């Protein structure tokens, strides 16, 4: 995605806020989406494992799966998504102005973002934390040794704030080198402009495999922040908020109940009342969201449960090989927990 296009999205988004007739995108996202026939989903401009186009030009990644789950719930068709790549700076404006219906772009849930931007976070797809990647030549093994280092950061991220806080709290100096896109950030790191690249640890894993010599880079053990990443919607449309929230919960509940895309058809006959409720066999839980009774069935059969999307995008079946860690289900030692369907 070229830099100039990015600026264009930014400016048109601002223009839409200024000029757009008021109350158009308010409270009717589901109707608008149905009329349009696709869910417009804001994703990153290329972060393997989270959202990036593959060699066929198809978008792949755990954030992309959330978009697909929402489309499956709304249309019964996980492919009914139009992906809008956004950089970190323009993402919120694009959502506020109605350019996208849902923003699923490794976005950290923070107070400011939740309360002052007119946005709502619909849940957590991935619990992350900020880490540091260095070249092995540097010979450091801890963040504490990075006093005076030049650090490559992507603009407009919580990372930019965390690193300033951390270095100030530890009375250390650093030179922030701030780039627009993750691609340029990696470019700066590879060119040797900075000693350190900082980002969420999952992103570091993704960026590391993009390096020309991944073996020469290492990720330092410290994690300096909490970064709960999740999908975001506009404030004021509770129905749409519920749809996105429960699309995510459906995948978590499916994993907990042992329903996967492979066995979902057998599970339709399950005796377990929890399974029957989730799959819409018992009563219609889609109704309250304006969806059909088989909304969760569509998500699980077309996208899969949380374990499936985790493993194939960022987990052991993917090049990133990130351990489940705290992203395990609550009953498995992690903190991923979805309210019950009832």
């Amino acid at each position, binding site marked *: 995605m070229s830099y100039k296009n990015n600026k264009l999205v930014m400016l048109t988004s601002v223009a839409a806020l200024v000029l757009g007739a*008021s109350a158009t995108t308010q409270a009717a996202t589901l109707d608008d989406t149905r009329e349009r026939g696709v869910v417009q989903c804001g994703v990153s401009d290329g972060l393997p494992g989270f959202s990036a186009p593959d060699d066929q030009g198809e978008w792949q990644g755990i954030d992309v799966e959330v978009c697909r789950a929402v489309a499956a719930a709304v249309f019964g068709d996980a492919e009914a998504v139009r992906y809008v790549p956004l950089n970190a700076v323009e993402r919120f404006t694009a959502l506020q102005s109605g350019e996208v219906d849902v923003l699923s772009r490794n976005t950290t849930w923070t107070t400011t973002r939740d309360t*002052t*931007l007119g946005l709502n976070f619909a849940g957590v797809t991935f619990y992350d934390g900020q880490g540091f990647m260095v070249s092995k030549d540097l010979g450091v093994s801890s963040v504490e040794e990075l006093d005076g280092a030049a650090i490559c950061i992507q603009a407009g991220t919580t990372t930019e704030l965390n690193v300033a806080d951390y270095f100030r709290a530890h009375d250390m100096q650093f030179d922030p080198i701030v780039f*627009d896109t993750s691609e340029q950030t990696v470019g700066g790191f590879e060119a040797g402009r900075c000693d350190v690249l900082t980002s969420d640890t999952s992103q570091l894993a993704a960026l590391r495999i993009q390096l020309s010599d991944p073996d020469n880079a290492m990720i330092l053990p410290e994690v300096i922040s909490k970064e709960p990443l999740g999908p975001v919607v506009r404030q004021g449309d509770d129905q749409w908020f519920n749809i996105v929230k429960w699309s995510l919960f459906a995948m978590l509940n499916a994993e907990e109940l042992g329903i996967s895309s492979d066995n979902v058809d057998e599970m339709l006959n399950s005796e377990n009342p929890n399974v029957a409720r989730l799959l819409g066999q018992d009563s219609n839980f889609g109704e309250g969201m304006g969806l059909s009774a088989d909304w969760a069935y569509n998500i699980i059969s077309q996208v899969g449960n949380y374990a499936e999307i985790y493993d194939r995008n960022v987990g052991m079946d993917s090049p990133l090989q990130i351990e489940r860690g705290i992203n395990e289900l609550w009953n498995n030692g992690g903190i991923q927990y979805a309210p019950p369907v009832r």
Partner: protein
Amino acid sequence: MSARPKVPTQGPKPPFWRDPAKRALVFQLLLVAGVAAFLLTIIGNTQANLAARGITTGFGFLNDTAGFGIVQTLIDYSSQSTYGRTFVVGLLNTLLVGGLGVLAATIVGFIVGIARLSPNWLISRLANGYIEIFRNIPLLLQIFFWYFAVLRAMPSARDSMSFGEVIFLNVRGLYLPQPLFESGFGLIPLAFVVAIVASIALTIWNKRRHEATGKRLPAGWISLALIVGLPLGVLVVTGVPVTWEVPELRGFNFRGGITVIPEFLALWLALSIYTASFIAEIVRSGIQAISHGQTEAAQALSLPQGLVLRLVVIPQALRVIIPPLTSQYLNLIKNSSLATAIGYPDLVSVFAGTTLNQTGQAIEVIAMTMAVYLTISLLVSMFMNWFNARVALVER
């Protein structure tokens, strides 16, 4: 005698829609009302939209703590400073690269433009090649070239290129020694100012004397000697009250001295070289616009070649050069916003980038940024118009 029909001075007044003056007034009022209604709608609409979506508005955020670092700051700045200060830091960085860019582009542009007209085949072809290459490659690509292509060729901090162990060049930038002034240094700027005042007085006196007697001194050389010599002389007399802080490799990077970051160098080079190619063409066309008869007439008066250029050709060429030159200056300053692509902390990168994203107040931030560029451009244009009026040919 006159064949014209006599216009009756008295008679029934035409209705106002037949009166062109009144009609024009009505149309103008309608237009003003239309524009005002449009603006009011936009403002009302924006406020309604923002309120409906629960987005915070207003300029209160400028007093909040920014919490992020900036690599190049011309004033004191830390992550504890306010967003208002990030605005000033970004603005100054934009002005720095814009101002130095205008200076370099003008110098290179004039040299190349004059070289383009050189009778020497090699020089004029080289100048032509320069112009055609640099004005025909998109600026963003040139910035990337200077940044990524040149940056990658630089050595790492630990094996920097060293110039006399005081100046260092590596992938992190150019490190220069910084002068630290001791007491007694105040005399040197004073000597500098005195030299400048004396030079101006000398030039005026020399001009009057030349007009009165026809004799003249080489005032330019004398002024130069004064401006350079006097401060230097004072420097020596006062026993050089300056020490130099030489950059030193400490930990990962050089510390101390003055650091010129590579983002600045790349942006400045790209902007200057790109704009200089346009200025060169403007200078060439300006000089060629002066008819050759002027040069011949001046030579017939046996003026030396230098004076022919200085007194006859250039003053007339400037009239043609300055208006398009103004546009190039404005372009350069606006193009400096491409800085954000390589991470130079200019206004767009720091304020319309990071600050916008951390506060989420897109409309306020974008409006302020646009207002800044508009103000800078209008000021430059005002100055250039004033300058243009000064050099315009005075007809006697």
